């Protein structure tokens, strides 16, 4: 291995983690952005300035959004989750007009005849981490420090709420074209199927308000503290850009470890049978590891990194959170901008425990990506 690389994870040093966060102000926007990218390294920075300046101005205008644990709010408080469905690339090309998220919430309110007292992220990562903050600020309601994925998965029923029996519908997808779709179905997986085609017609992305429920249900049905965690990770990423120092901090905060470091040598497409109902076709990345080991790292991609093989041996796999860090530039390498020759660290972070349960694995594990191998943690 390269010198200076810590051989064990969990080494505690410095002050990466500052615990739960009570509110999100405009000053937190850069950390929110970096953290959101870490938890879903799908989208590059092509829309960074627009997104961050929008949220910054919004939070400056309306004041900070309060971030509360579900336990703090009265259990009967109606709440709804928000995210961006569709691709961040489409959103970059067709930015929000500004009211999509609040309109999606309002339309679910109309459909359920409720007034929501709080909003929570459906998936606290990538642009979907921004959506609930924007809506909470615009609607002047609280933001709950919990989400349904703790990262992103491909389909909208890949959530802790779905596993806990909370219905995703009625849901509303409100697009940048000013049009919206209301979906009612008792079956979670059907909701995604019904929605995908509509999302394309709405411009490739839409604001999605789903899983209307109460904070009491959310206490057991969502993954707690994920927004705080995301901002804390973002702060670490902003503070440390040296890949080795960063790894030490991330190991301490979230148990992140490095699988290897190498150069991208090959990008393959349609490298596995394609299920055309799931976004982003399968592709693969081959990384030639630097140093004495010199292993061939094979990285299987969909919208997220699905699996990492080292010389053919499965060493990490979904639901682990896998991401690439551009070691020569000190920034996260996003899946939409990889190039042969890039020098990357392959990082693995354990996902929330629920995803390693039998039900969780069945839904988002390797099997769901057509790779019939046991997860390395189970062997």
């Amino acid at each position, binding site marked *: 291995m390269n010198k200076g690389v810590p051989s064990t994870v969990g080494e505690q040093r410095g002050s990466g983690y500052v615990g739960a966060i009570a509110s999100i102000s405009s000053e937190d926007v850069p950390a929110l952005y970096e953290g959101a990218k870490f938890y879903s390294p799908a989208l590059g920075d092509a829309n960074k300035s627009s997104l961050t300046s929008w949220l910054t101005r919004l939070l400056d205008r309306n004041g900070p959004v309060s971030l509360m644990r579900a336990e703090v709010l009265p259990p009967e408080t109606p709440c709804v989750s928000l995210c961006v469905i569709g*691709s961040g690339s489409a959103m970059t090309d067709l930015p929000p007009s500004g009211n999509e998220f609040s309109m999606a919430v309002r339309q679910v309110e109309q459909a359920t005849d409720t007034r929501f007292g709080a909003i929570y992220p459906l998936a606290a990562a990538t642009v979907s981490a921004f959506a609930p903050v924007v809506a909470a600020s615009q609607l002047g309601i609280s933001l709950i420090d919990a989400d349904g994925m703790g990262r992103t998965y491909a389909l909208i029923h890949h959530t802790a709420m779905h596993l806990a029996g909370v219905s995703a519908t009625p849901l509303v997808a409100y697009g940048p074209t000013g049009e919206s779709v209301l979906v009612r179905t008792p079956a979670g997986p059907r909701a995604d199927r019904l929605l995908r085609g509509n999302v394309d017609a709405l411009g490739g992305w839409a604001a999605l308000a789903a899983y209307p429920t109460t904070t009491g249900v959310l206490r057991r049905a969502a993954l707690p503290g994920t927004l705080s965690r995301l901002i804390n990770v973002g702060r670490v990423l902003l503070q440390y850009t040296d890949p*080795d120092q960063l790894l030490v901090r991330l190991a301490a905060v979230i148990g992140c470890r490095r699988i290897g470091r190498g150069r991208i040598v090959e*990008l393959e497409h349609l490298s596995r049978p394609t299920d055309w109902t799931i976004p982003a076709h399968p592709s693969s990345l081959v990384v030639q590891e630097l140093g004495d080991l010199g292993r061939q790292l094979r990285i299987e991609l969909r919208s997220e990194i699905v699996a990492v093989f080292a010389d053919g041996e499965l060493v990490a796999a979904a639901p682990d959170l896998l991401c690439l860090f551009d070691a020569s530039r*000190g920034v996260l390498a996003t899946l939409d901008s990889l190039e042969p020759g890039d020098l990357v660290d392959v990082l693995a972070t354990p996902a929330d425990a629920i995803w390693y349960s039998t039900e969780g694995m069945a839904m988002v594990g390797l099997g769901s990506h057509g790779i019939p191998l046991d997860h390395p943690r189970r062997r």
Partner: protein
Amino acid sequence: MPTRAGGPAYADISLQPRRQHAVVLRDHRVVSIPFVPSGPDDVEALLSRILAVAGGSLEAVTIDISQILRSAVLPGPQALPQVAVVRIVPVPASDPALARSPADLVERLIAHRFTVAGGHDLLGNELCPLDLPGLEAVTVRLALVGIRDIAIVAAGSQANPVHEQAVANATQAAVPQARISVASDFGGHGLVAREATVTLDCALGPLTDRLLVRWEKALAAMAPGVLLRVARGDGGHSTSSRIRSLPVVSLGADDALQISGAAHLERIENCRVLLPRPGGQVAGDVRNGLVAIRSGELTGFGVELVVPTAVLTPDRGGSSGDGLGRFTDGPVVLATRDPQELACLGAAVSQPTSWLDEFAYIESAEQLEKVREEAQERATAIVVANGAAPGSAYVAEVSTVAVPYSPPGTVRIRVRVAGAADTDPRRVEVFDRMAP
């Protein structure tokens, strides 16, 4: 002493707001030309000094205007014209923060903004029919405000430019003297970045025209037949007339040229170059003799652009312990020479280049291959228009990635093509006129 013996000579000039730096490259020797302060006859004065060294062997002059353009854009005495921007999207922004550019220095250039309903998605499907009555109202207003420089950007115009073209045609009809820039000329990704790019392009047009026309005239008078090339932000060069029609592609050329110049001095094809900068040392990479580029934010601009520029990373070098250390497994070059001289050297070794960043839809590996080949062909046609000798173009970089969370089959293709500079002025002119 003018002389004709030896191989061809090339002059490379770095224009700065108050002075001009030049070198002459001949038979692998670099001769620095004493700088000339800016003034009414500075071009002629510099050119005569260059000719004194290069004599009749002078074949081409490469000029880097990026520093002049940058200082015109950055805050200071306003030197650029005001621009009107027409945005074509399905729904106008409801939040003022989304109606404007995130970058103050871009917004400063914009006197009027208009929105016309219309636009396409990433793959060119129409999202909303073009609002023709709305367009008419906008053109009437444009004619009324009496602004000449107009930038037009439509959602998805890189995939389908029909709305953008319709608006451009209507605008030209309503404001016959208008100078119009359209975003589909640049391709790229991201409405905000594309809008910023086309706005800057529009605003930089007149200044670039003035600069390059002076040089063209001086060259025609003092050294007829000598080609004028202009450095690009990706470290390559284009013909003078191509840059006059798309001036924004020359932004950031100084960074790229300094990096390639420093690498060339050390004769290394793959390395990291450390450049001293007032705000702290930055690093740029050179791969296979070309500067590593990406479309993104140009330092200090506050917004992403869709024209590629050198990727600069803060890098103190070595183990600094301040968290800014970077990892690299190749040689590291510290650029210690005068930056202007390095830039001139970089211009001397630059090649005509082109760059494409597109989205496409594929259903099979064969289709992917076809889509990739088409992109390469387009990029090759552009590089020839940029002054490459026909047949010399080669694909320097190509990457295709699946677009996360998009419908399966959506791919993003980036192609970088370079070629050998054509030395035949007549042919360069012909291909220039045939530019795609």
